[in-house]
């Protein structure tokens, strides 16, 4: 019963925000909000792999790309037709698009999840650094493949994706990934992931099937990266392989590291911060990347645990502060 209430309440809230946002703010701000949301999904999904389980995955953009292009192809070749048919049957546009969009997003996520499985399984016996290189190689291979496959537009890009993704969908994606991550973290399965991060040998010796769990982290992380990619595709209406380079993977890593590996709220905060930062630094555009790289270096030297370490932002923190201030 409690769950149903929360679910209904969230949907209502998202619909309200979706309605209000474009009417309260100019399109530029709305765009930044949307990109924030997509980056939040990317950061939290990567945190599952890098932060919770301690695996070195540095090719996350590859999973995003698969989700983006996969969902785009599903929509272009099937979804558009369904939406049109539903619309012709009298169903209002928003609902007619909702079904096909959901199918496309889940489809893209599923394709990315499969990729996560294929990358994860053979690589897991590799030591940390080697896994990093394999994931890097994977990301690059995906990009090169996309560049060379004409059916998805190749270097010219893929236009003509209906722009069905609005704040409702991005918000729903965000809430889903945060929920899944938090519920995992505070369960025995999450504990298993953290155990693998802290000491894989001990975890295995205590009955945790480390291989299965490492692959699981990859699959779930990749799934949500794919969903983020799908939202990205259906928001921009156009895809280009240059959006999915190693640099994109690094940006997501930076968010996870800045936020604190293992902290979901940290990833959310950092994703928002690091999406806003380039916008705020637009005046010094030339120096932006230099400052970005300096930030990474200085962060690692001075505060490698990031903003939140592995703690979470909770209401209890604020209550304690108020109590302390009142005392």
């Amino acid at each position, binding site marked *: 019963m409690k769950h149903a209430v929360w679910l209904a309440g969230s949907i209502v809230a998202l619909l309200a925000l979706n309605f209000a946002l474009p009417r309260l703010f100019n399109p530029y701000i709305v765009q930044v909000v949307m990109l924030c949301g997509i980056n939040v999904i990317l950061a939290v999904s990567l945190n599952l792999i890098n932060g919770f389980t301690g695996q070195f995955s540095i090719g996350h953009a590859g999973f995003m790309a698969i989700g983006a292009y996969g969902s785009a192809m599903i929509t272009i070749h099937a979804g558009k037709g369904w939406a049109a048919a539903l619309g012709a049957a009298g169903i209002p546009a928003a609902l007619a698009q909702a079904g096909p969009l959901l199918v496309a997003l889940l489809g893209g996520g599923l394709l990315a999840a499969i990729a996560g499985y294929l990358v994860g399984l053979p690589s897991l016996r590799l030591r940390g650094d080697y896994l990093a290189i394999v994931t890097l190689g994977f990301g690059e291979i995906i990009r090169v493949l996309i560049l060379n496959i004409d059916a998805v537009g190749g270097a010219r890009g893929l236009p003509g994706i209906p722009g069905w993704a609005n704040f409702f969908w991005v918000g729903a994606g965000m809430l889903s990934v945060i929920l899944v991550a938090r*519920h995992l973290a505070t369960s*025995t399965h999450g*504990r298993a992931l*953290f155990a693998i991060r*802290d000491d894989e040998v001990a975890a295995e*010796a*205590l*009955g945790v099937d480390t291989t299965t769990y490492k692959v*699981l982290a990859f699959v779930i992380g990749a799934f949500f990266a794919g969903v983020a990619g799908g939202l990205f595709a259906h928001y921009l209406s156009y895809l280009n392989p240059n959006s999915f380079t190693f640099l994109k993977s690094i940006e997501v890593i930076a968010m996870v590291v800045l936020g604190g590996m293992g902290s979901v709220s940290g990833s959310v905060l950092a994703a928002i911060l690091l999406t806003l930062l380039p916008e705020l630094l637009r005046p010094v555009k030339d120096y932006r990347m230099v400052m970005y790289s300096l930030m990474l270096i200085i962060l690692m030297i001075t505060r490698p645990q990031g903003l939140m370490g592995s703690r979470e932002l909770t209401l209890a923190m604020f209550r304690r502060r108020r109590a302390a201030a009142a005392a």
Partner: protein
Amino acid sequence: MTGNGALLTLDNVTMQFGGLKAVCDLSLDIAPGELFGLIGPNGAGKTTVFNVITGVYAPTAGQILFEGKPIHGLKPHAVARRGITRTFQNIRLFGSRCCRDNVCIAGHQHAEAGLADAVFRTPQFTRDEARMQREARELLEVMGLAQWEETPAADLPYGQQRRLEIARALAGRPRLLLLDEPAAGLNPLETEELMHLIEEVLRRFHLTILLIEHDMRVVMGICRRIAVLDYGLKIAEGTPAEIRTNPKVIEAYLGEEVEADLGAGAGA
């Protein structure tokens, strides 16, 4: 159970790394309820025996039977699920997690709620999680670690860390517990407490314990039977009294100082 009723049987087990035979043709029978000691000079292959039993390595030759069924070649988590858990020579706690979490993780193999239950927070999950936390707390209580429930494991004093490792291994509900040098680094008082703890744990949880130790007081004091390894070979097996006076054992440990230790153990 095998014909001879042993809980664990090692049958001509050999573990070879390249040119080095770490364990050579080892045969061992451990009866249920026993407190069995495994001793020998450094490098004798004792931890390797543990590693082979728990599946970290698959033996180069030979068999390992647990409760009559072969376990050699199984992966460590499968061995743990069969009912064998262990502690490590160099403490391997999950340092960033609190003590309760460390113990809970060992209970993972007995979790009844699946992944979907956890994500969707079904009543099944809530019940299961509450049970795991409660059992972890009880175990910490029994081991005298209740006050450190919320403390990260890395912040515990050394002696308590060793206890936590044992508590964690117990949470796996093993029938056979492997302790790898549990007294390492403990002072005489702590060692005394540890000896009582191990005997208590053996009784209370109806366990069988296989113990690697260098501290002769511990070995001679609490073990019913002892096997001695040297360069991967078993050179003696028997009761503490028999081992104490075995010339091959004394020679392997190089003589008089050890003789004195073994003698001291007799008085304990």
